[in-house]
């Protein structure tokens, strides 16, 4: 059995007391490309944010290479959804990629020659070297996505979380991302990707996490990405979970 890169035990996550993920339990072995699949509102982004410590857990725990996220931050790279930032912010492509190195730099230290070299290499890997000095607003959606990928590469992590990197990108970016995923896998990295396009799941991923507020299934694509499981994932919500969540929310007096 290979090393376990990422593990969730009995995790429940709630926003304002309303649970969005119930009792998730899963294990991802190292060196896999993992698709996180499920309908809108299934809690895919929440799963990632919980793993990164961006939202508090109501219960359970998350382990990265056997330790808590707090201790293993350096091993983790993150690509948030493209819409999550203001693209009119006064930074260049290069500035954004350099941010990937900030975690390792620590307080007060500025990025220097080694960091700039890393950034340059990462931009080259996503085919964006020519745009290093552009303001980020002047890029197309696909190019912006590639900048975010380069920033995650600059984190030089073992475990990557990508939130919908394929959303609204051009064909060139899509194939660039796929190439990148393969490069990462051959480097022994583990990558979890929130993904929307069911058609490409088999082509892109080795493992799949099927999610709809609870964990439907998690395992190798061949055995897990079955019609039966998809039916369970997409065939309507479990209304009882919805109702229970709503009941929890209603108990909060003033909202």
């Amino acid at each position: 059995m290979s090393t376990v890169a990422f593990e969730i035990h009995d995790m429940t996550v709630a926003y304002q007391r309303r649970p969005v993920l119930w009792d998730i339990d899963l294990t991802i072995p190292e060196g896999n490309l993992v698709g996180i699949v499920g309908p809108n509102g299934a809690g895919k982004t929440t799963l990632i944010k919980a793993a990164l410590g961006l939202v508090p857990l109501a219960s359970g725990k998350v382990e990265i290479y056997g330790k808590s996220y707090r201790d293993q931050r350096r091993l983790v790279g993150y690509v948030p959804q493209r819409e999550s930032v203001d693209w009119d912010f006064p930074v260049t492509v290069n500035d954004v990629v350099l941010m990937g190195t900030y975690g390792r730099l620590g307080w007060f230290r500025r990025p220097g020659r080694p960091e700039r070299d890393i950034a340059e290499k990462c931009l080259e890997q996503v085919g964006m070297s020519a745009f290093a000095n552009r303001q980020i607003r002047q890029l197309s959606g696909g190019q912006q996505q590639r900048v975010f990928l380069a920033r995650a590469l600059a984190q030089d992590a073992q475990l990557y979380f990508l939130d919908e990197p394929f959303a609204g990108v051009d064909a060139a970016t899509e194939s660039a991302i796929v190439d990148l995923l393969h490069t990462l896998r051959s480097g022994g990295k583990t990558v979890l990707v929130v993904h929307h396009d069911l058609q490409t799941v088999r082509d892109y991923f080795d493992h799949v996490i099927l999610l709809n507020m609870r964990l439907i299934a998690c395992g190798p694509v061949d055995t897990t990405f079955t019609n039966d499981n998809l039916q369970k994932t997409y065939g309507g919500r479990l209304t009882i979970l919805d109702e229970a969540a709503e009941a929890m929310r209603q108990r909060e007096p003033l909202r």
Partner: protein
Amino acid sequence: MTGLSLTEKVMIGTSLLGGMSGVVGCFAVLRGRSLVGDMLAHAALPGVCLAFLLMGTRNLLGLSLGALASGLLAIAAVTIIVRWTRTKEDAAIGIVLSTFFGAGVVLLSQIQKPGVGGSKAGLDAYLFGEPGNMLNGDLVLLTVVAVVVLVFVGLLFKEFQIVCFDTDFAQSQGWPTLRLDLVMMASLAVVTIVGLPIVGVILMTAMIILPAATARFWTNRLHVMLLLAGGFGIAAGLFGTKLGRGLPAGAAIVLTAASLFILSLLFAPQRGIVARLLAEYRLRKRIAREHLLRALYELSEAQLPELITLDLQTIQDYRYWRSLESLLQQAVEAGELQRSGKTFQFTPLGLRRAAKLTKAHRLWEMFMMQHVGIAPDHVDRDADDVEHLLPEGLLIELEQKLASEGRLPDVVEEVPISPHSLGADKATRP
């Protein structure tokens, strides 16, 4: 310090204030928090009055602490309202701001009643600003605050940048985003409050927003924006004080900052209105010129390669023109056409350019018809809209695509074989 005249002191003080509010204003503006500064300023008034009533003197430090206390109270009030009621943040800010300000005005009127001794205290300055009241101690306080704020921003530049741009990502790297955010807010609060007696409660928000918004016109880099905003703030302080003699000083400073903003809005490269209109004008001119060349090509296409002469009327009737005469004149000046009386003829240069344009146009038309499914009688207009903006790389791709489907016989234009052997040049070099 004592050797300075009042005017010099005022100028130093206002430019210090302008510089630091420009710098902290950048972070507030970029985070969409400009109104927080406004609220802090207004909400500070009751604190100032209460502090005066407690101390009985107009000591800037004491009054500022009072202002800070009521400002923080106001922030807490907004947070609570947003968290526990259905009121949205902007409404909550409006409510808290005006309530605190109202309380402040009532307190101020009580202080200024004869017998309380407040009429001479110069608390009016807090409403509209009065830099002329500046004492040596005030100047020292301003300097200390400016140095502390600038050191913070200098040390934490990288941290502030990442938190402002992408808070989630920053937090995933382990930065204490909440505390960094608080430091940014605190520096905004401190700068706002020391600025109150200089430009006044009502105008202070302009000092936070204007230099930052002005700087944004000129740069796409955060550190340059910070420096520029600081510079614009200093300029507003200096020139506002100097030019505004005899006028209410706070207002003069803010108007100077506003003038800088308007100038930038108009004349900044790329983002300024003039630059954008100019670019638009150039594009339109180019499109009109390209239409002309293509029309002439199509008119003379049947006789090519012979260069026929076309008279003005034929061209006029070919399609709708906005100002044909001047277009033709421009083409003549560019060496694309030859004119004799009322007839025109392509020069070889003009023909070459026209052929290239027509080719691009037709490639795009074919693409639109075959792959986008646009009806043939609509295609000309649709092609017109886009083709002028197509990058060369895309045109080449289009060409290859159509060629691979057998729609275009020759992809590469005829290029004669090189008359000398290639690569020899490199080899003979030492």
